[in-house]
């Protein structure tokens, strides 16, 4: 019910950016590329941010371009072009070797400032695994990710359930739909204190939950959260790995949702 109301509110306010991200943001500096190529039928551009230590960048790139036929480019983290992308994906891996704490060093590089700008401007940002950790460390997503309750790295498949299908990453899913998805992480236990959790729930920010099979002990079995506006999402499981196993490939729908959302309307 709460989710329903929230969505109604969003629709009235209209901030989630159906309009925002597909049209260039007026108050932001657009570089030549966008100005030059911008037309009514301009293809949305997706950038895959590569940090030193990113591991799943090539995997995401392969699945998007070669399997799902969604065009996406690598963007080295210091590349000044980052701001020109309509949407960015921060892939999994061990940015800066996960030194100190997963994601924390990446969150203190200049790219973090750019990401915050993009998020504020309503563009979509998807963080997968280590990308989720980075977005949390950037403060773009609430809560924190800590060591799994098993105290060890875990790589296997699990099942997740759609909780919020009103985000740019989940619009084609049905609410409560469940599907299989691979996980691979050491610090994937999502934590938030009572007050924060309440506000996350109230704002309908839980996007996916582990379904009957929580691999890391996350609070409320949370597998993915978004920001209040819904344009930034972090997900611990790896949707890009699902298409390898053709029999369980609902997970890559996340990218299809994103692509649909970014299409000019």
């Amino acid at each position, binding site marked *: 019910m709460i989710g329903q109301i929230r969505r109604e509110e969003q629709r009235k306010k209209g901030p989630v950016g159906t309009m925002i991200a597909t049209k260039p943001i007026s108050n932001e500096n657009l570089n030549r590329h966008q100005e030059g190529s911008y037309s009514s039928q301009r293809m949305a551009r997706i950038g895959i941010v590569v940090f*030193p*230590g990113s*591991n*799943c960048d*090539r*995997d995401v790139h*392969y*699945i998007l371009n070669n399997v799902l036929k969604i065009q996406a480019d690598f963007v*080295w983290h210091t590349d000044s072009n980052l701001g020109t992308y309509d949407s960015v994906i921060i892939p*999994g*891996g*061990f940015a*800066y*070797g*996960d*030194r100190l704490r997963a994601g924390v060093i990446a969150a203190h590089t200049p790219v973090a400032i750019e990401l915050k700008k993009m998020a504020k401007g309503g563009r979509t940002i998807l963080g997968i695994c280590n990308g989720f950790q980075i977005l949390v460390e950037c403060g773009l997503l609430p809560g924190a990710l800590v060591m799994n309750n*098993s105290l*060890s*790295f*875990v*790589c*296997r498949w699990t099942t997740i359930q759609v909780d919020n299908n009103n985000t740019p990453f989940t619009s084609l899913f049905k609410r409560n739909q469940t599907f299989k998805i*691979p996980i*691979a992480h*050491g610090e994937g236990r999502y934590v938030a204190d009572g007050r924060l959790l309440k506000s996350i729930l109230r704002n309908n920010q839980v996007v996916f939950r582990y379904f009957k099979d929580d691999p890391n002990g996350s609070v409320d079995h949370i597998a993915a959260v978004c920001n209040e506006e819904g344009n930034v999402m972090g997900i611990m499981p*790896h949707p*890009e*790995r699902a298409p*390898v196993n053709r029999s369980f490939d609902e997970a890559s729908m996340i990218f299809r949702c994103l692509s649909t959302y970014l299409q000019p309307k």
Partner: protein
Amino acid sequence: MPFDLSAAQVKWFEIVMAALTKEESRYLAYKLNREPNKTEKEIVAAEWSEHCSYKSSKRFIKMLPSKGKHVVVGPGYDAAVLDVGDGYVITVHIESHNHPSAVDPYGGAATGVGGVIRDIISTGTRPIALLDALRFAPLLKEDNEDGSSNSEWLFRHVVRGIGDYGNCIGVPTVAGEIEFDPSFINYCLVDVASIGFGRRDSIVRNRANYDDLIILVGGPTGRDGIRGAAFASKTYLHHNRSAVQIPDPFLEKLLIEAITEAVEEGAIKALKDLGGGGLSCCLSEMSDNLEKGFDIELSEVHVKEKGMSPLELMLSESQERMLIITDHLKIDNIRRIFDKYELKYVILGKIKDHHNLVIRCNEKIVANMPSNIVANAPLARRFSKRPAYLSTLRLDFTPPVTPSNLTRVLLSMLSNPTIASKEWIYRQYDHEVGLRTMVKPGYADASVLRLDNGKFISVKLDGNSKQCYIDPYHGTLGCLSEACRNVACTGAYPIGIIDHLQFGSPENPEVFWSFRRAVSAINNYCKFMKIPVVGGKVSFYNETSKGPIKPTPVIGAIGLIEEKRLITQSSLKDGDAIFIVGTTANETGGSEYYEYVHRITGGNVAKVDMNIDRLNLRSTLELIDKNAVSCVHDCSKGGVAVAISEMAILGGVGFNIFIDKIPNSCYSIDSLLFSESHSRYVIGTQEPKTVEKILSGIDGLVFSQIGDAYNENVTFKMKSEILIDTDLRAITTNFKRLEQIMTR
């Protein structure tokens, strides 16, 4: 700024090891035509250590067949290169890190991974998979002879070390094997193999011209791992912590990316990783291979700590370093790429038109020797003698009485950590990153990886120290047969073998006899099967407080699956008819049944008849080719009873087997159930008639339909008498024993 050795350091060095033998010292002085100085002596000692020079093993492993239609580069280089068609190659290498892992399991295992990955990068290919073969003493104290064991600690941290390193660099750990045996008390064997993939035309050619630049890139050089090669070339008696290197997977990841990028830009002319022996071995071997002289200046090397002497710089085995050769045209590409990844590098020197390795520090020559002398150790003469224990084992042996409750025996076999599910291990390894893993660990006998040309490779490591101890020759043949069977079970034909021969001290004639028997087994098998041995490694001086380890050759098989062929897994399906190919003989010597259930060492080790082995392998592949099977599983550790149970657990379905239908020459029921005879395959099919028809058309093939898969009961019947009666839940629970031990 490096300085000369202090008096205390000199003393410490001398205590750690007496470098060269007297004969070697004399030989060196004779070759140089002068007395070498201290630094030169130490550099040569590192290169002439057993670990780097293969001085005991070279003349034997040289005879192994290494040519084949897929082989581009055979053994002797950092990694072997195999052609997989369409302009693509795979590279493969195996290494062990036994001594360091026994001291520091986490760091030792992790740096073992790092070392083998750099060997793959050295060819200019990107690493796409890791495999590991591990050996420990039993985890439970009561399973060890003196009731004490640190093996749980070793095991836990070795697995974590491999996982943390492989996960961080984004290379999936896809397959492996593990064995527990009391002979590894307070020790462990950690073998790591890696597979690389790349384009044939971008393989680094390792050529150089005069005036080319020699660059050292990667981590700073420190005092860690000094004399690691020497440490590994001695019997492991005390904990020498300073000989173990410190892992930094993040740096390795940057090296992978930077080197791959530089290779793509054609900026690298020659490339080698720094492993055992550090700069000493790397520079001398490279200089010798290229047949060019090297002028090296050490003073600019980036270091971890001040005051390192030239000798320490030369011997340090600090990890994550590589040596590259480039020319003046491409140096700017190299600079740009290394700067992008914030990798430290230093131009160490230049290629010169002499043939010497000239090492300077602050422009003062500290060593100057012809590199072909340094890189080619005089071969050691080792004596061999049949071990006395072999006769004793034979005399002392009495076969056990067949247990009355065979159900309990089966459940106990399944809960044997050597046989039980390895999920606790591979769950800690990211085995899916890279999107190439088509068959994941645990689902089949080997793991299958996707290549970019639509083909697949199937990879597996196998070893069996228990059988190799009782019969080094047939034990080794068995490992070869098993590795090939494993890849064949996924539908692949073996195209290359890698071997890792691990033994005690070669100075012990009995150990050396076993070594020679193992080598001749590999030689005979591979020549007969026409599968080239493309790479390998020898690790001697693996000794514990109780003497030499059991002989442990580890064999890796690489199989190729052509485009659009079926990949088979091991999971039994409901309604499958179960067939067995091959004969079960009375071969329980060194089996898990004797060793784990009865604690008996002795008996007949399973022998491989190579004609039958080849016939059975080809027949099974033919069945897979004709799409007639739903699952295939190799019959090895634990025998046929364990093999079928594993298939049932994986498929989640029960079965009924008629034991009397299994083709055999056994004297007793227990031996029929648990004998580890080779060349056997268990096959499940929904089309028994087709399978029957195909197999009966093959001349000389022994096979039989032995049962069916249905509901949840697990039964083995002899005519109408039920010998084993249990269910899926019981066998599954027992199969999770390893996890229960490690998470209790």
